């Protein structure tokens, strides 16, 4: 699902039928217009879109505002009455027998090899657009109609589903169309998006909507049940998949989880990990951050056949999902390496997306472990936070200290290092805020142990800025990165006195100046390089 699509869905969350379409079209037109204006200012298409979305504000605020304006539209109210009558009639035909519907199409726009933006970071791949699954409408019809589920197509963009004993469900139709494997998919005609269908559309039937299972996912709408299984993907070696063919249940549950937490957080900045309780092998995942590697071993009691999600505060400024499968076949697994032991919290407001600043460069290890509820009707209750007292984390930081930075292991497999980290580094950076372009200077004095002091100098006082530094070994191979944020830095000279880049032996330091506006949104980023003097 694209950021635009997600925004539009959240903004029109509470609306039905004609009102939903009107508001959606109006907002889409607004966003397109604003995006175009930002592009005219020199922003890339994706940056322009992000800025246009930010300008509009939080989608749930729009949704709440619209809810206050519209009650259920008359047209649809009538449809519901008809639907209720139909449902009452059909209820006698409905049995509680399981429906063997098998929906498939385990592909998503982000798996395209040509248009997707693939970023390689640490040991993962990030995809610019959360990928998703689409259910075949024809398959749904074939499997559900014989069991009393009525499909009502009023026009190509409107589809109503009548489940026995439930209210009519308006199925959201997507306008996506794309090509994959030389096939063109017209999604609005052929498919419905799975996670939206499950968490948004179906609950409007007012029947309990349940989801369970991992390899074989069973969906229940009242007494009607059907399976979602996935066609095995046959990897094409010529295609760089993004992510590299992650197992589908994780993606489906991941999208549902994302939908449920998107109402809690302004932006999804934290990585999360979906944990399924099946028989697969446990994967150990670590993040190396700055100079320490802390392997958290987490133990908790797992309810059989339940899905868990581990969410930790992160620093990603992008609206991305860092997705990685973590299956459980035991009740303990190694998850995250941080500077600190993970600290589990018991409420969402304590899971603050961490921000580094020059005075506090330590990364927090705040995390939440949550069970995914099997009933999806209330999004705010899809995730049930596991009491931190029921979780144990153990582990030790794996320190990789080397005082002689020319000899560290970081560059060992990357062509080696040309020079010691210690010394004076300086260079210019350029701000890229529209109309406020300026050139600044950055000086760093790095001690042999990696601690640095320095100064950032710029001609104008700026509200909030940050820099990220990356160190590279020979052949420009990336070694390490470090970020700092300066808050309330209205001055032209910013002291950098608490940094530490202990573990790198760079040939150069490359970084980017990052500018934020008064609302703390990133408005500009410019890359620069520092050379050793």
């Amino acid at each position, binding site marked *: 699902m694209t950021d635009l699509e997600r925004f539009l869905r959240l*903004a029109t969350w509470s609306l039905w039928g004609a009102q939903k379409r*009107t*508001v959606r*079209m*109006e*907002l*889409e*037109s*607004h966003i*397109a*217009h*604003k995006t*175009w204006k930002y592009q005219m200012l020199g922003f890339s298409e994706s940056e322009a879109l992000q800025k246009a979305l930010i*300008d*509009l*504000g*939080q*989608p749930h*605020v*729009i949704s709440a*505002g*619209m809810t*206050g*304006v*519209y009650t259920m539209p008359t047209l649809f109210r009538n449809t519901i009455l008809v639907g209720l009558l139909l449902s009452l009639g059909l209820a006698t035909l409905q049995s509680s027998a399981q429906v063997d519907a098998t929906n498939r199409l385990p592909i998503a726009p982000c798996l395209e090899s040509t248009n997707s933006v693939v970023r390689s970071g640490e040991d993962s791949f990030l995809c610019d657009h959360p990928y998703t699954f689409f259910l075949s409408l024809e398959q749904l019809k074939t499997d559900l109609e014989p069991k009393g589920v009525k499909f009502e197509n009023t026009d190509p963009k409107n589809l109503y589903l009548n489940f026995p004993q439930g209210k009519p469900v308006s199925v959201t139709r997507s306008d996506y169309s794309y090509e994959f494997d030389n096939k063109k998919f017209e999604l609005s005609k052929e498919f419905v998006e799975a996670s939206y269908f499950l968490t948004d559309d179906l609950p409007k039937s007012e029947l309990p909507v349940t989801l369970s299972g991992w390899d074989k996912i069973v969906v229940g709408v009242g007494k009607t049940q059907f399976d979602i299984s996935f066609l095995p993907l046959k990897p094409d070696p010529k295609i760089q998949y993004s992510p590299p063919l992650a197992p589908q249940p994780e993606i489906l549950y991941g999208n549902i989880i994302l939908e449920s937490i998107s109402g809690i957080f302004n932006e999804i900045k934290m990585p999360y990990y979906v944990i399924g309780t099946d028989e697969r092998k446990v994967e150990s995942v670590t993040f190396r951050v700055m100079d320490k590697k802390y392997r958290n071993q987490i133990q908790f009691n797992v309810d059989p056949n339940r899905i868990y999600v581990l969410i930790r505060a992160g620093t990603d400024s992008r609206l991305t999902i860092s997705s990685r499968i973590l299956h459980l076949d035991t009740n303990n697994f190694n998850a995250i390496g941080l500077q600190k032991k993970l600290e589990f919290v018991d409420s969402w407001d304590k899971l603050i997306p961490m921000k580094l600043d020059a005075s506090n460069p330590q990364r927090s290890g705040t995390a939440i472990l949550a069970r995914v509820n099997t009933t999806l009707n209330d999004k705010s209750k899809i995730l049930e936070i596991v009491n931190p007292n029921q979780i144990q984390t153990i582990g030790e930081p794996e320190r990789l200290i080397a005082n002689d930075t020319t000899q560290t292991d970081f560059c060992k497999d990357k062509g080696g290092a040309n020079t010691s980290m210690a010394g004076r580094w300086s260079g210019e950076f350029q701000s890229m805020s529209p109309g406020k372009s300026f050139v600044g200077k950055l000086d760093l004095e790095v001690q042999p142990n990696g601690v640095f002091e320095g100064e950032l100098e710029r001609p104008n006082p700026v509200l909030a800025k940050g820099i990220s530094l990356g160190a590279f070994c020979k052949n420009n191979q990336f070694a390490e990165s470090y970020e700092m944020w300066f808050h309330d830095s209205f001055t032209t000279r910013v002291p950098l006195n608490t940094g530490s880049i202990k573990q790198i032996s760079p040939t150069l330091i490359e970084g980017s100046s990052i500018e934020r506006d008064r609302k703390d949104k990133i408005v500009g980023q410019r890359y620069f390089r520092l050379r050793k003097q």
Partner: protein
Amino acid sequence: MDANLLKGNLDLILLTIIEHGEMYGLEIIEEANERTNGYFEFKEGSVYPALHRLTVQGLVTAAFKPSPRGGMPSRYYTITEQGQKTLIQKQQEFDKFSHAVQGLRTQS
């Protein structure tokens, strides 16, 4: 600007902007910023529910029309006769209020 003040007078502001001709959402927002030199810090998304509320109340009508830059059509808002009357009424109320506050300040 105080957000509550803006919120409390949003209908008046919107009706005033579209008083002289049909406009679409983004145009209204930009017009408000331009005419007040950025005094109204609109959160763009908050304008749409307000415009829809005015539509439901019959104070404005709305219709999709081709956008000036091409592409997707924009939803244009036009003030109705009832909207004109409401606008005059709201302007008078605001003037009275403003006058009363001025009076308080003068006396103090």
